[in-house]
């Protein structure tokens, strides 16, 4: 039984291993190395005695960026989970008609599959600061005020949170929906015979049954929100005046806008460390969910 099939397996794995080594493992090692140097656009490798990490601690903006990150991730995750659950329960438990429910599921996924470049302009256009902006037209119509508002300048964090939440709804809602579908129908029948109302069924049967899925999605989305900065970058680019600058975006800015590769790498490393801890948790949740 324990006959090795190395000869067969390795050819199958070679392309995978090559790509993973070149674009994950080597860059990871490079990032660690870079974070210990003052590497910039002149590409001189020079050990700088943990200066980058010291710089992070001393940077007056660090506190603000951490706070932004926490607020952004915290709000987005809470909203996402709640909306995911509501949508999943609605389209799976209450809407029994398969085609109606899959129609709405597809609809929810549209922001997710819209290319980020288009999606962000959609928001910018919606919130256009001039009197032609859609939201401004609504706003001026309702309040009778004559002055249009510059929404993005005024509520940048709220806007990026909303925009991000909308793109992440699809994944979680679909996930929860299939989890709810796998709850045996008999449990619902039994509950109904025992006199449970719809709310008791949702809170007493559906939620406990999918609790590991909820944990999983919460952690998974947290990982995504912490590290994926594209939506913010395209809508506000961290502005105005760093109000929406989150940790991952600041790493990108330092490295690619300011070409401080070493410093950017150090900022990335800090986040990678946090992410590693989350991944450990996620693995635990996954194994419990699949048990």
């Amino acid at each position: 039984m324990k006959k090795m099939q190395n000869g067969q397996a390795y050819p199958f794995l070679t392309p995978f291993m090559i790509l993973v080594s070149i674009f994950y493992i080597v860059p990871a090692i490079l990032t660690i190395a870079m974070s210990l140097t003052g590497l910039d656009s002149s590409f001189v490798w020079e050990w700088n005695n943990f200066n980058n990490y010291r710089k992070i601690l001393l940077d007056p903006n660090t506190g603000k960026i951490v706070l932004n990150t926490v607020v952004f991730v915290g709000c987005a995750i809470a909203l996402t989970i709640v909306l995911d659950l509501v949508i999943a329960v609605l389209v799976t438990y209450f809407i029994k008609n398969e085609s109606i429910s899959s129609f709405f599921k597809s609809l929810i996924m549209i922001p997710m599959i819209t290319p980020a470049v288009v999606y962000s302009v959609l928001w910018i256009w919606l919130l256009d600061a001039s009197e032609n902006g859609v939201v401004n037209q609504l706003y001026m119509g309702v309040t009778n005020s004559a002055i249009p508002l510059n929404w993005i300048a005024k509520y940048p964090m709220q806007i990026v949170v909303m925009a991000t939440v909308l793109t992440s709804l699809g994944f979680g809602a679909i996930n929860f929906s299939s989890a709810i579908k796998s709850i045996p129908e008999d449990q619902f029948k039994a509950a109904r015979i025992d006199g449970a109302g719809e709310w008791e069924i949702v809170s007493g049967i559906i939620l406990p049954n999918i609790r590991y899925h909820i944990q999983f999605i919460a952690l998974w989305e947290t990982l995504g929100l912490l590290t994926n900065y594209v939506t913010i970058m395209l809508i506000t680019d961290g502005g105005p005046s760093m109000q929406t600058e989150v940790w991952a975006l600041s790493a990108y800015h330092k490295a690619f806008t300011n070409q401080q590769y070493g410093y950017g790498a150090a900022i990335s490393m800090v986040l990678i460390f946090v992410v590693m801890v989350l991944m450990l948790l996620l693995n635990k949740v996954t194994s419990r969910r699949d048990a």
Partner: protein
Amino acid sequence: MAKKMLSRSEAKNQRRAVIAITLFCLPIVALYFTFFHLAFIDPDTGALTLRNFQFLYTTMDKKLTQISPIGPAMKNTVLFSVVVTACEVVISCMAGYALSRLRFTGRKVIQNMLLVLRMFPNLLLLIGVLYVLMTLKLSNSLTGVILVAIAFRIPGSTFIIKNHFDGIPRDIENSCLVDGCTRFSAFRQVIIYLVKPGLASISIFSFLSAWSNYILFNTLIFNSKTPVIATYLKSLSRPEQMIVDYNTFAAMAIVYVLPVLVFFVISQKALMKGNINGGKGV
């Protein structure tokens, strides 16, 4: 499946739920719908027009600038998406099969690595990746971006397809071997058909993500010689100021998004069908 009969209260709840979710979705739908309105309706006359689509074949003169036609960007995007999807599916299929079915030295290590890589925030490694590409003299080239795009997605795809391979009963494979197949011909004639839903889902997601990829081009390509639609559109729309009017942009966005939407709608059906037929009678 027989159509389920709903009790009166269930039907009532269903109606309520449909109303609730419709109210939620309405703004999203309206938003996308206005894009069509912007693109096709002349703001002055209110008539149907294709004037906003001139970028498809010719240079458009605007107040601030000239807009070059979308052709080269379109070509690059199609090339990029097709190559990335094809390579990704093939590579992850091979790796997933080996990890699921063959036993070899280091199997456990690679499996654990896959678990980590699948979740790893690859965007945080872009600095290192850029350095690797420069060392390989691949930076600033489409080839480089293609390689990175494939690499960034194969752990996830491999993980998904491996799970599908894991779900194939041993008996089916044994049956092939007894019926006269080698491992390879069994893979080609039977196994591949059993993971069709998995293949469909990884190719769909791979294509969608490749088609809309922006960050890799923005980060790894510094000139405008290899535009893709994403960077082309981005260059025309800055957060501070739109270079083009929204009508033209909407037209461009429709050209960009339509393939994605069509593909999505088609594949949705395929996915559903695959799942229904794949599970039974195996």
